[in-house]
């Protein structure tokens, strides 16, 4: 039997995490969630996920940016694809996050989705990033 892929989700909105976890589990993924950026790295030591879904504004307005840069700098995690899922563009209305996604220095993520997102759209993006 094919092993289910693991997704690590980091978001400061617990309700959103619960809702998304239900949807992704229904679509055949294993999901681990956390609201704390520090515990994200602890969880990574336990098991290497196939994908990380990351919010931007958690402890600070930019903690998600710091997390994704740290992940891409770390040799052990740099190959894990990152999907940024956030409502951050509300705070920076003039900046185009979607086009900046992939910039190694600034926004080293594999995909960017603005909240709110419909369940099927999120799954399409996940499949694309995971080459499924």
């Amino acid at each position, binding site marked *: 039997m094919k092993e289910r892929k693991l997704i690590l989700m980091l978001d*400061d909105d617990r309700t959103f*995490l619960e809702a998304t976890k239900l949807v992704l589990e229904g679509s055949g993924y294993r999901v681990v969630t956390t609201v704390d950026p520090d515990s994200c790295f602890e969880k990574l030591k336990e098991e290497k996920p196939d994908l990380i879904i990351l919010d931007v504004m958690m402890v600070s307005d930019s903690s998600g940016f710091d997390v994704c840069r740290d992940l891409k700098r770390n040799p052990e995690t740099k190959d894990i694809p990152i999907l940024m899922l956030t409502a951050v563009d509300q705070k920076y209305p003039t900046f185009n996050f979607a086009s900046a996604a992939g910039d190694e220095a600034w926004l080293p993520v594999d995909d960017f989705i603005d*909240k709110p997102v419909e369940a099927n759209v999120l799954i399409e993006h996940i499949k694309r990033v995971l080459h499924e």
Partner: protein
Amino acid sequence: MARVLKKRRLSSGKVLVLDSDREGVRRLLAHFGRLGYDIENITEPSRMIERVKNNQADALIIAVEAQGIKGYDLLPIIKRINRSIPIIVTSMDDSLDVASRVREHGVFFYAIKPIDLKEIELVVKNALSKKRARADAVPDTARQVAGQDYEEEILDIDEASKILRLSRATLSRLAHKGEIPGSRIGNRWRFIKNQLFEWLRVTAAGNQRNYGTLILETMDEGVAVVDKRLKIVSCNSAYLQSLDIPRDRIIGEHCYRVSHRSEVPCDAATCPARQAFRTQRPVKFMHINYDEDGGAHYCDVVALPIKDDQGRVSEVVEVIRDNTEIYHLNQHLNWVVSFVAHELKGTLGSVVMNISAIVDEKLSRTLNEKKRNEMLLSSLGSLKLMNDMIRNYLISSKGRGGQLQTKMQQVDIQNDVLKPMIDELNPLLMKKNMRVEVKSSGERPMDCDRSLMRIAISNLLNNAAKYGTAGTTIECGLKLTDRGMEFTCFNEGGGIPADKLDAVFSEFTRFDTSGVGGTGLGLHVVKMIAELHHGTIKAQSGYIIDGQPISYDAFYANEDYFELREKEAHFKKFANFVLSIPGQVIAHSGADALGEV
């Protein structure tokens, strides 16, 4: 021998003293006399003016409490005669008013009595050495020319009345009213010749007063006139006030030095004055000016060209409107709007995720009925959270604008407020497997605004449910007595940091990062509602030890808990809010505050 040399060296400057305090003058003369200074007491202000006019003084010590005049009234006259003479002002009055009157004329030193002779000695020594240095630098011919100018400048009333062709009485009356520039020294009027000619020119030219200057003075905005070298040639009082600099430090100074504290002019493309000179048209720019403390002022600068007879721009009038307050308000408003929008969008995220999964044909097949119900319940909770956010934001805005009013009525708090608010909380309580327990005493109706009281109780319950530990009980207490109402709301959970117990009621304040969301307005709104009812709201927090809540204060003050301090990180915490509303409240007039919420 050495002593003689010292005496000879120090006596190279003449110091004049004007003070009504005889004992003080005697001490000064004795002290400086011993040191070999050429120092002299002057009893009449007019004599001092004469001596300065005749170049017979190198430094002056003037007391605010001089004979027949306030010392600071003498300063502009002396400065007119000899701008560079060092003036040391002394005063028995240490008020800010006197200090600012003295300093606005640019004195060398200002000392509060009683005088420290050593200090004054040092000041006089410095003053004379500066005076000597300046004198050495000015050629004799230049000094002679300057001397002639000065001699012609100060006029008595007879000389002035001849020039103006006015009687002494008329001149005296106009000067007294301030319509003709003059200064009363002792019992005599003194006039500056150049000022009289200027007055004559302006008045005679249009047979009217200088309305231009008067109009500038009526304006709230700072106005300065800048010449082609970008030097300020005139300005109004609002301009001086906005920069908090005396007039004598502004006139003749480059505008960029004054307004930007910069040593170099602004870039030509963004300098309103340079643009107005170049284009010969009015221009407007947003500029950041800096005050003496380095504080930024966000200003609109409008530059209006003044043209001469040939149509060339000779000067530019700069009108400076300080919009700093509006700028900061706008910044705050933008922050609030983006903050609230972000929170709403985030909360909407879980609703869209849930509902889109349920209605998606393919995805819905992966969800059993229990999961679907969970998702619907979660969405309902999120929508209610959004509704509360919007409601709290609107009430907070109304409160800030002074528009929040109460409609007082007799309210059954138990059945008409508490019970329906607990019922409303059910989706969140079910989701977290929590319950609410109420202990009440007294059944007296309460004078309050029902709608606002519902919001206050709802916010407290919501707060307890959001931050409370799943599976625990929220304990509420309701006491209704003749003295009023006390409502308490207790929950086990993350607690409130000990140093944040007051700050938790501030606008947009959130301490918890466990992912429950919210705009940080709920408790702020409770405080506003409590205060509108002349009541109070207090936050308490601490540890739960052996099932008993122990406040932080009690935990650290009680020796019995000393050994437990090492384990404090492992204790459960609690938060408790106490809302007290007095029974006798003053009714406010006005419509139901929630009519539009």
